[in-house]
């Protein structure tokens, strides 16, 4: 039956096109639309805070079903620029706004108001059997870039150092690299040693540290438990050592930490105020802990 062949081809072709159009269907990012009605909020900014913002928005929308909160990333600078341009209601930022940005905002008739919403603090962790109690940032940088490879060199036992890190895409990985390996200087180019073990989760790091006395790792402060030991950290040789506690982070004494901020235009009103009140509430701060950041209160 020769007439069958074209028919088969037709079926094949249509299926082909159908699947192809499905796969090539591009995803459109949210946040293009400007905040319209009173019941929607546009949040933009820090990539570190995207997950946190999204977790808050989900909880908030569950509690107030008639609201809509859209959260997008792009970086702290992007968020602040959007606030200045008036295209978002809240800018998420993991750094303070610069004087220049304040000036630009005022020119545009925007009055940024800062609110601290959570803290980001990383604990440096070792096995409890390890006698090392404290390290300076220089020592830490040398350890994680592979210059120091034995615990003996920093006052420990004669053991090889096994580095544990998070995956490259994790905000924690990036922050640790910028803050510790590069001493907060974005012109420096230090990288993690290529022998660093990249673990899929903070839990995986915690598990390996708990059973291996050679290891050193880092994770969000909220993660620690008695099977790991947190190190005290000093900015340099001449500075005092500080434990990674919530109090020290809040006072600004602990070096590997930073406040997470939200900026609004003028004092928050209506739905934005409702959202920020939720963020600071006990429930909102519980969300902070759930996504590995440090809540403002215990």
């Amino acid at each position, binding site marked *: 039956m020769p007439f069958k062949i074209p028919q088969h081809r037709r079926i094949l072709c249509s*299926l082909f096109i159908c699947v*192809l159009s499905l796969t090539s269907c591009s995803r459109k990012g949210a946040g293009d639309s400007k905040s319209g009605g009173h019941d929607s909020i546009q949040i933009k900014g820090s990539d570190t805070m995207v997950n946190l913002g999204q977790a808050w928005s989900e909880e908030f929308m569950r509690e107030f079903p008639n609201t809509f909160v859209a959260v997008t990333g792009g970086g702290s600078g992007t968020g602040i620029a959007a606030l200045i341009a008036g295209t978002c209601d809240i800018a998420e930022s993991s750094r303070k706004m610069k004087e220049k940005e304040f000036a630009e905002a005022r020119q545009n008739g925007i009055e940024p108001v800062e609110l601290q919403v959570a803290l980001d603090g990383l604990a440096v962790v070792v096995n409890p059997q390890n006698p090392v109690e404290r390290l300076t940032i220089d020592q830490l940088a040398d350890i994680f870039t592979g210059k120091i490879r034995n615990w003996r060199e920093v006052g420990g036992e004669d053991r090889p150092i096994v580095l544990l890190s998070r995956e*490259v*895409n994790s905000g924690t990985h990036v922050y640790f690299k910028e803050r510790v390996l590069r001493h907060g200087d974005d012109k420096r180019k230090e990288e993690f040693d290529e022998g660093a*073990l990249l673990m899929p989760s903070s839990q995986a790091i915690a598990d390996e540290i708990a059973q291996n006395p050679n290891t050193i790792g880092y994770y969000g402060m909220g993660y620690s438990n008695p099977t790991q030991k947190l190190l005290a950290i000093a900015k340099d040789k001449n500075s005092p050592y500080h434990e990674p506690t919530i109090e020290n982070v809040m006072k600004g004494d602990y070096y590997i930490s930073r406040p997470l901020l939200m900026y609004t235009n003028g004092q928050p009103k209506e739905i934005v105020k409702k959202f920020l009140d939720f963020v600071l509430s006990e429930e909102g701060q519980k969300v902070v802990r759930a996504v590995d950041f440090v809540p403002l209160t215990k």
Partner: protein
Amino acid sequence: MNLKSLKEQIIEKTIFLCGVTSVLFVVLIFIFLAKEGFALFKTVHPADFLTGRRWYPISDPPQFGILPLILGSLYVTFGATLISVPIGVASAVYISEIASSRVREVLKSGIELLAAIPSVVLGFIGITTLVPFMRNALNLPTGLTAFSGSLMLAFMAMPTIVSIAEDAITAVPKKYKEAALALGATHWQAIWRVVLRAASSGIVAAIMLGIGRVIGETMAVMMVTGNASRMPTSLFLPVRTLTATVAAEMGETVQGSAHYHALFAIGIVLFVITFIINLIADWAVHRKSK
């Protein structure tokens, strides 16, 4: 109108569709992989990609050298093959040639059960028992090594190797063995020189399919190999495999970025590797029928 022939037609078409879909999906997957992966080579030279020794995908400028990852995958696969092939083939011989029918049934269902264990469970068992044990027993800096991955993967490849090799051995005509025994060969000589020779193409296919399973495995490997993208020099050091890299990093890459395309390019490399392995298996099977 002839209802019967219409029904025939419908059934025929349906079966035809089912038949072509799997082929169609393979083609579509390949097109998608190629479309996303080859985009990387606009900015990175393929030779630099394949032979570069540094994998720093989000640094500035990013470095996309996957040689340590390819070698990582090969080390883990090599170790797994070394462990699983002798044990797998030996147990296939035992099951098909030596074991009594009762023992055979028990062993066969046991091996099928092994195949049913999800890889994440094996990985979890590995990380809680094998990894600390390896570190203490061999006095290693860490138990998260290529060898731990090989051991876990050997468990996963074993059921494939045993069941296909066993089929191949059982399919050898009984008269071959009988003839060997009649000529005065011992049982072992008959197995080693006659039955295994006759079944060799099926056994090679079994081994290749086992290797294919190993090189594509992700979860257990990611959990126990440590994922350090350093050039591997020993089976007892941490390595990072191709599959683990894609799985760990795909979740949070920006769509359309160079990193995203690099992960798809890794997918192409994996596709090519498994394709070659399947080709060898296919060649081994058809060699016999000539």
